[in-house]
Every structure is written in C-alpha cells, then in structure tokens.
C-alpha cells in the first residue's frame, strides 16, 4: 500500500484523459477487452448463421421480417455477451485453486461511474430493442390495413385434432392449406372445442384458436412450395399429430385446384 501511495504522490494529479489512458493500458483491462472482442465475434457469427441455417424456408413477408429481426437482435446482443464473457473468462483465467482461500482482493465496494454507465448503456439497448419491435409491429399492422381490401379470406377451424380450412369466396372446405402466391390472405381462426394455436410454420405467423372467439392473422405468401401447418398449443391427446400440409401455388394452379375441389373461382 505504502509504495503504491508514493508513486501516486510523486506525479501530478492525473487528468481524466490520463486516467482513461492508464486504465486502458492495464493488463487486466486489455485481457478482458481482447477476450470480449473474441466472444463478440463468436456471437456475431452465431447470429449470422444460426437462424438462417436452422429456420425453415422463408415463404412470406412476415417470416422474412421474423428471421431478420432475430439475426439483428443477436448482433445487438453480441457486444453484451462479449463484455460479460470477456470479464468472466479473464477472472476465470486468474483463478486460485487449492484448499486454502486466496489472499483478499482489492476492497472495491462500488464504482459509481461504472454503475451509471452500465445502467445507461443497458437502458439504451433495451430502448433500441423496444423501438425496433414497436416499429415492426406498426409496419405489420399498416400492412394488414392495406392488404385487407384485396385479401382472400380463409376460415380456419381447429378441433381435436384436425385443422379445417374453409374458403368462403371459393365455396370449398378442405384439410390442406393451399394458397396462391403474392395474394394477401386473412385467416379467421376459431376453435370448436379447446384452445389450439394455428401455425403455418413457413409463413411465420401464429394465432390461437379459441372457442366462439374469432382471432385474425394475415400474411402474404411470397414463395412457391410446400408448407407445414401445426398446432402450437397443447390441446390434449393427439396434439402432436394435429398437423397438416399445404402448397403455395401460382394463381392458375390455385384456381385449378379450387375448381377440382368443386368450388368456383372468385
């Protein structure tokens, strides 16, 4: 303690800039910083690859927005993970083993600037996430309003343990969800018994099916191909098997299919 004090007394009181530079040159700070950068990069790569690799084909505007958002959030959280894991790993590398306790460390009880900066930065990051989410929500509801005029309506009924799709304008009812591409669609979802949750996986939307309460969800398919429809709310015995498939088709194919089902082209 005393020798340390001497050093401090001999030099002039450091300016804030000097103190920052001294701080940044400290071995523990440099080590944590390098480790932090490493972990940040790990999470950036994870963010870039994890969701695009594992999530199913993007087949609607909503699915695209969902995936983009998850990737972006992983990027945003990467520096947070970097800071936490960087400091944690640095202290872990300095660990003490054996059966006797280590010497006491420095008696740092608090550090007001650190607490304040930490609080402000984490609040700003939360604010960023909140604003991002709210903007997405708003974009979604505006899209819904503009699509509503031209949208095709599909009435979805969940019952234990089967999905039924009724196309009122076409006058058909099926158990497979076929939709024309680039045509906004509104799902009016209802249950005939317990709660279910309507989940056309590749379209990236979801809403519960409730008894006697219609819930609404909308999207626009943007890619041709097969889709899976699942139930995302435990609904009893065969919940796991309450799934079906469908196709996103060209408008012509869709009309042919409707006609083949005995319906009329709207």
């Amino acid at each position: 303690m005393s020798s340390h004090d001497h050093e401090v007394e001999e030099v002039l009181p450091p300016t804030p800039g000097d103190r920052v530079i001294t701080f940044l040159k400290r071995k523990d700070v440099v080590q944590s910083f390098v480790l932090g950068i490493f972990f940040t990069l790990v999470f950036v790569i994870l963010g870039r690859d994890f969701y695009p690799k594992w999530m199913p084909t993007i087949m609607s505007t909503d699915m695209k927005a969902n995936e983009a958002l998850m990737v972006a959030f992983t990027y945003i959280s990467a520096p947070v993970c970097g800071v936490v894991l960087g400091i944690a790993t640095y202290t872990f590398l300095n660990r003490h083993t054996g059966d006797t306790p280590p010497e006491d460390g420095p008696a740092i009880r608090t550090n007001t600037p650190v607490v304040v900066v930490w609080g402000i930065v984490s609040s700003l990051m939360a604010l960023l996430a909140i604003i991002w989410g709210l903007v997405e929500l708003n974009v979604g509801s505006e899209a819904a309003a503009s699509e509503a005029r031209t949208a095709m309506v599909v009435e979805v009924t969940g019952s234990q343990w089967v999905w039924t799709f009724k196309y009122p304008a076409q006058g058909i009812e099926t158990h497979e969800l076929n939709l024309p591409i680039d045509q906004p669609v509104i799902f009016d979802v209802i249950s005939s018994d317990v709660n279910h949750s309507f989940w056309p996986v590749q379209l990236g939307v979801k809403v519960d099916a409730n008894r006697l309460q219609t819930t609404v969800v909308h999207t626009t398919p943007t890619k041709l191909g097969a889709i899976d429809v699942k139930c995302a709310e435990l609904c009893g015995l065969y919940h796991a098997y309450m799934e079906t498939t469908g196709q996103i088709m060209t408008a012509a194919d869709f009309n042919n299919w409707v006609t083949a089902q005995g319906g009329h082209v709207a």
Partner: protein
Amino acid sequence: MTTLEHQVGSHPIPNPQKSLITKLHMGTGLVIGAIFAFGTYYWLRSGQDMTVARNVNKVLLISMFMWSFGFMLGIGAFIGPFRWLIGKDLTAEEQLFLAGEGQGVSRYFRYCTDHKVVGIQYLVGVMAMLGVGGTLAMMIRTNLISPGSKFVTPVIYNSLVGLHGITMIVAMIVVSTGPFGNFILPIMIGARDMAFPRLNALSWWVLFTAIPVLCSAWFLGGIPTGWTAYAPLSVQAGPGMNAFVATIIIFAISTAVAGANITATVVTMRAKGMKWNRVPIFVIGATMSVALAIPAFPTFMVSMIMTALDRTAGTTYFDANFGGSGWLYAHLFWIMGHPEVYVILLPGVAILMEVAPVFVRKPLFSYTAAILGFAGIAGLSVLVWAHHMYMSGWLPMLNGPFMVTTEMISVPTGLIFLVILGTLWRGKPWMKLPMLSVYAFLWNMLIGGVTGVYLSDVPADNYLHGSMYVTAHFHYTLMGAALTGAIAGLVYWFPKMTGRMLNERAGYISFWFTQIGFQILFLGMFIAGAEGQPRRVADYAAVYRNSDRISTMGAYLIGTGMITLLWAVVHSWRKGAIAPMNPWGAKTLEWTVPFPVPLENFDEAPIITSDPYGYGRSEK
C-alpha cells in the same frame, strides 16, 4: 471449532407428561389422513351416480382436501389453535418438546417448530421432488429419442409433460427459500428462530400433504394439460386433473404461510445493528422472492378454485358456450406465472451473490445495484404477464405495451450481471464448487436472458411462441440459473446443515456432467425450436430427428450428473469429513455458530456493526 460430541448437552430432555403432543407424529398423520381421505371417498361415493364426471370430480376433490386436513390433524397441527379456542395455550414444556429438543432423528418426523428441522425437512422433500421431476424428464426425453418412438403412449406422454412441469415448478419455488430460507436465513440475521415457528412447521407439512395428492394424478389417469392447465382443456380433462387442482390449492396455502413467515422474520427479527444496508444479500433476495409470491400465488389458487367449480358445480367461468372465457384463465394463470419465475430466480441469484464475495475475497460490488436489480425485477415482473398471450388473439393492440415492460426487465437483470462481474473483477476466485456455479450461472443466464429478449419481441414471438425454443429458453433461466444457484447453496451451506463437507470429487464430476449435458440438451432444443418443432409433442417429424437425439443424449448426461450429486449428498451426509465451523472463511453470522446449531442458535445475541462483505485490502 466443535465436534459431533458437542450435542444436546446441557438441556434436560423435556417430558410433557400425558400431553397428546408427544404421541403425534408423521405416522399418526398418515393414518388419520388416510382414514379421512378414504372415509370421505366411500361415504360420499355411496350417494352419487359415479358415472357422471362432475360427481367423480366432486368426490375426489373433497377426499383430497380431507386427506390434507386429516394429516394435519393427525400430526397435531391444530392442537395449539384448539387450545387458543378454549382460552389456553401449549405449556412451556410442550413448546420445548415441539422445538424438538433432544429428540434426535425422530423430530424430523414430527410437527417440529425448530427452523433448522424445518429446513432439513424442506431439503429432503425438495430433493425427492427434483428426483421425481428429473425421472419424468428422462422419460420424456427417452420418448423423444427418435420420431415414431413408442416408449410411452400419447396419454402417458402428456401426463409426463404436465407432471414434470408442475413437480419441477413446485420444487423450484421452494428449492432455495425452503431449505436455506428456513435453516440458514434466521441465523444469518441473528434471530433465535422464525417469527412464527408453528406456522413454519405448518408450511412444510401442508406442502408435504400436497405431494401424495400430486402423485395420485398418475393413478387417476394423468393430466393432459401440461403444467399451465389451460381451460377449457382442464375442464374437459379426466379425474387426474382433480389431483392437479388440489395440489395447487394446498401448495398456495403453504407458500402464503411460508412467505408471510419469512418476510415477518426478516422485517422484525434482525439482530441489533443489522440495518437494511447490512443485511446479507441472500436474505434480501429470498425475502423479495417470498414477498413477491404473496400477491402472485393467490391468483393461481383462484384460477384453480374456478376450474374446480367448473368441473364440479357446473359454473362456466371458462366455458365460452355460456359466456365464460379461456382468456380469463390465461390471465389469472400468468398474473401468477410471470412473477413466479422470478420467485424461483431471485433466491438462486442471491445465493450466488452471497457466495461470490466469499470465494473471491472481495466485497460484493455495489450492494445498491444488487438491491435495485432485485427490486426492479420484482416490480416489473407483475406488469409483464400478457407476453405469454401475444399469440392468444386477446387484444393484439396491448402487445406493444407488454413488449415494452418485458424488455425493460433486461435493465435490472443487467445490474445483476454487473454486481457479479464487479465482484469477480480483479479478484482471484477460489475455484471451489460454489464458485464454479457462479460461472455456470453467468453463461446460462446470459443465454437465457438474450433468448428471452427475442421472445419478448412480438414479431419474433410470432415464430417462436409455443415452440421448443421457448422450452429451451426457460430451462436456461430456471434450471441453468436458479437450480445452479440452489446447488451452489447446497454445497456452500452443507457443512453448516449437516456438519460435514460435501465430497468434492463427486461434486466436480456432478457439476461437469450436469452443466455439459445441460448445454447439449438445450442447444439441441434451441435448434429444434428454430426448425419449427412445437413444444409438448409426443412425436415429431423426421426433420427434427438430429436435434432431438442430441437433446436426449444431453439429458442422459444431466441424469448421470444428478445421480452423482445425490450419491455425494447421501454419502457425505453419513460419512463425509467433519466440517470446521467456518470452512470457507465467510463473514456472515451462520458461520459463527457451532454444529449442531443449538436450539435458539445463539448463546448471546449478536450485535452487528458492518455488512458481511468486509473483505479486501484497501487501496487508493
């Protein structure tokens, strides 16, 4: 230092002659409880048409409550209150007998008012519950080992999911505040016992009566609803559902009693000089947790009473055909359900905050930030429940506000990280088992927290809600963070609770198996969720085969680790090395008392002059 010889000693064994109290114990409780339960069952059954589901539900529910009541009668819980009714109370001798003085092991099977006995009862009970819940989890993962596996039928699978869920939730709610909140917390604050010792015994034994009720679900056809017990599925469900309903109602009584007791103890019985800024952080975390439970759990109880009425009395609270609503249930459930996850998390985190300064030999970094973190989490947690209902279709226009409150929780959670990181910073952490848990917590809570931010965001939740991703997320927080904290507490306080050190080698083996298995299991589950596998499915499409297989392998590693831990606990408890009075060199009060901790804990009431974190060399 003390040895095991320094037992009972000076006090004579109390002998309240002819008192009924001396004749009652767990055995009489079980007998009278069984007589009440089966007597009620056969008596009510005789006059009813038992082909009608409503009558079956009625008879079963009443029988279950009568079991609980009969057990409490048989163990002597009502002797005190009855004496009050006739204007008397227990004699001093009887009270000393109830405190378990000089009774050896038998006091663990009595209505014992000593907080240390209650703590051990909770510890054993919680370990049994975790063991059952863990076994159910192994069965779930075994069934999911490959698509089309027929290890169990869908009926049994759904029951496994529901019973695993509720057993684990019940166990996790009391896993830290039960054993450590009762055994350690009063000593930590320098109290001679809890504020209400008889209520303390009541809270444990009431919880105990819930365990056979929950187990009976298995024999009554299981529960098909998961632990959330959503209506109207729960109203439609078979007789096993009654066991669920009764369990929750009984459990809610137990937690209300325990919560009020712990809160009152901390508020009124702290040692002289222990101002609020000198209270150990575990005490703060545990108290906030139980205090948060007091307003939260009654809504669960109410929702279960309403479910019971719908199932027995023909009310239609949740039946849309007659103007009811399933959303009403979802609200009541989640108004409890979201504070509840923090009821589980806070004490686990608080244990790790208690442990970190001891093993780093540095003061807790920013006690104020820790309190702000806890308080912020507890405060916000009551305002976020509808984020579980983004996709329910209930008022989508409120999704925005609930998203805002939910994402705000990341700020106080960030303070928790700051406190732990700040405590570690520039220290040389002593790598004993509890310290390893601190590191495991940092990683697990980071993953759990970040994925929580995705889920709190409505557009991302569009895709992830109801998928395996959610399951993985909350296991990271509840198991990876809260259970890790509780296990750290077990290892840390094991010497004080049992007088012996926990076998270190077995502890390390258990730690690494559990933590590595945990990462493998839930990494697989995150992937399955991202791929689009819904939760709670007995079977799945072939595309999820790899991720589910990885998960199952991870689960078996966890199973191995947990069995090792169980072995370590049992073996060390019987034959472990005798612990010194303060093996970790900690500064909190519980390490100043000998083992076995004498009745009323302290010979002389301690006086507190500083907080317990006075470690460290001072420097400029």
